[in-house]
């Protein structure tokens, strides 16, 4: 038969895996950035972090740092004058001072007391309970010497642990969930067939992981940056010195750890064909994400558990920064843990890519893991 030879302009070179990966990643990022809910939730979260820091600093002033107002009459003015943390409010006489207390304009009043059994010669008048702050400021305590001073108080220790754990849980599960959802959506809408007739499955998976990792780490870094800015503008630079290095490590650990989780989310999601079915396959992965959060809450005062956590790949992103903050990790420990994490991330993404390639085109019934991993497909 007569075969017309196609005479058409030269086609552009087919992009390589790396280039295809970048294109896929770009789409993942742009489509996410264009989602209103993503933008809004990010802004709200950053505002919450900043607001939280500013608020605690203000509340802190009010509760501890700020001077407590105390009404005094001329006879007792001298008692309060030189005391740190108390601000004298002059009242004409004892009745006026009592009124100030009743109207809650002052926390307490210091009035003269002539009773014989009162060696101090004055009495503190409160409204409905003993004004602890004022009593503390006025009382005299002996100096204290601690033999084994804790580096950080239990409260701060708890708070910092929870923060690392919560940020990790939130970011990993929301972006991981996003990857899973996109994967199933592509499978459900069958666009994956068009994509895979164009790009290799590896590029598709790698692009997904890359794109969402950029987004997740970007969000984490933005939170960290806002937190630093917040601490600086509220004058809490001293706290910055304590958490600065752990936060930086946290971002690095999160970067590598999230790649590992992203591969898990994507390959788990590729096993099912409908959004409704994702719950069951994602369960184990979600558990892996939640474990570090709860472990760090319950065991943040248990050095052994924290040490184990800081080396287990799934929880290292939380465990190691907490230990760094507590000062219980030697300088080489984060490096070793990071190496372990990176190694397992490589391994898991390789296995994930295999599962993903095998199952992403199989629709209908859920693909079992053994099927996805077996030699023949």
């Amino acid at each position: 038969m007569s075969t017309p030879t196609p005479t058409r302009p030269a086609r552009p070179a087919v992009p390589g895996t790396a280039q295809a990966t970048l294109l896929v990643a770009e789409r993942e990022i742009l489509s996410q950035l264009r989602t209103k809910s993503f933008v809004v939730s990010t802004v709200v979260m950053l505002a919450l972090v900043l607001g939280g820091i500013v608020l605690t600093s203000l509340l802190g002033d009010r509760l501890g740092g700020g001077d407590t107002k105390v009404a005094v009459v001329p006879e007792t003015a001298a008692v309060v004058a030189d005391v740190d943390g108390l601000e004298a409010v002059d009242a004409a006489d004892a009745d006026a001072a009592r009124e100030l207390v009743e109207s809650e304009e002052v926390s307490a009043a210091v009035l003269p007391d002539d009773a014989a059994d009162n060696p101090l010669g004055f009495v503190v008048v409160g409204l409905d309970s003993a004004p602890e702050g004022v009593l503390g400021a006025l009382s005299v305590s002996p100096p204290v010497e601690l033999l084994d001073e804790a580096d950080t108080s239990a409260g701060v220790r708890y708070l910092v642990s929870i923060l690392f754990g919560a940020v990790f849980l939130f970011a990993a599960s929301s972006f991981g969930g996003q990857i899973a959802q996109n994967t199933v959506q592509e499978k459900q809408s069958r666009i994956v067939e068009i994509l895979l007739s164009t790009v290799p499955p590896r590029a598709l998976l790698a692009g997904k992981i890359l794109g969402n990792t950029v987004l997740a780490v970007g969000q984490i870094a933005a939170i960290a940056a806002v937190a630093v800015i917040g601490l600086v503008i509220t004058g809490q630079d001293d706290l910055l010195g304590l958490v600065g290095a752990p936060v930086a490590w946290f971002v690095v650990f999160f970067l590598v750890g999230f790649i590992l989780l992203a591969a898990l989310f994507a390959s788990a999601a590729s096993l099912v064909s409908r959004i409704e079915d994702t719950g069951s396959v994602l369960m184990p992965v979600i558990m892996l994400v939640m474990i570090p959060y709860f472990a760090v809450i319950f065991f943040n005062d248990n050095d052994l558990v924290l040490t184990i956590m800081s080396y287990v790949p799934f929880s290292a992103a939380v465990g190691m920064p907490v230990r760094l903050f507590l000062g219980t990790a030697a300088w080489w420990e984060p490096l070793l843990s990071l190496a372990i994490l990176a190694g397992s991330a490589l391994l898991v993404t390789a296995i994930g890519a295999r599962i993903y390639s095998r199952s992403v085109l199989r629709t209908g019934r859920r693909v079992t893991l053994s099927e996805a991993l077996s030699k023949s497909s």
Partner: protein
Amino acid sequence: MLQLDGITRSFGDRRVLDDVGFSVERGKLTGFVGGNGAGKTTTMRIILGVLTRDSGTITFDGEPLGDHQRRAFGYMPEERGLYPKMHVLDQITYLARLHGFDRRAAAERARDLLEKLGLGERLDSPVDDLSLGNQQRAQIAAALVHDPEVLILDEPFSGLDPMAVDVVLGVLQEYASRGVPVLFSSHQLDVVERLCDDVVVIAGGQIRASGEKEALRRQYSAPRYEITSGGDMGWLRTEPGVQVVEFDGGYALFDADEATAQRVLRAALDAAPVAQFAPVRPRLAEIFRDIVTDEQRHDDEPAATTPKETVR
């Protein structure tokens, strides 16, 4: 030319393709007909490489088909697939970029193509917002945007209104006339018969017929003639070698080989003036009506051995 030979594929212990072989020639529209479950989609997926074959060969212009050549194929899957929330233009541009066009060239091609397909007004709509017919057009744009060297379309006309069918057909014919092999599937024989040059008929995972449309009609139908004469044609019944199918006074429809038919014509002319004499070829739709039927779906088989996947 795209050539398939001896393709087999089983899901579990059920063989869905059995020794499938046919060719898709350059410059022609080839229709791929079969009922639901006959193996059309599985065959197409194997051509595209999104499904592996158990055995058999596929060649393109004489060379074994590889992934690299496949990238230049245009594919439209049966179950339509585009990102539901992504804008039509962005989506087609993205696909063009995946094929290697730079950002600007990709956007330009996508815009031109979508306008040609009648979607110029909806470029910035999410796919979700389009009517089904328009989604279909967008889907076709997705298959065409990189100027494919081979076109494989799974049921491209299903769900299209007649006007859209014409638009799509025009585009496909344009590609065919440029020398691009075009293969499209349908479960409607009459559609394929109307639109195609070549036809491949599949049933139960086996190719029942393939080739040029007219040749198939000749090959698969008994040689049949009709004659309209001024006189009575009753004598035809006793004519040796003639099988009368229909008879009505001066009109007769009969099966006979060519020589016999000519003899009948001469005899008829001797008897009375003949108003009409012509060979009758039944339409493909009639010839293959019994073959192109829906297979029993096997969804209720034990799931352990039979993935439900791709059994169309």
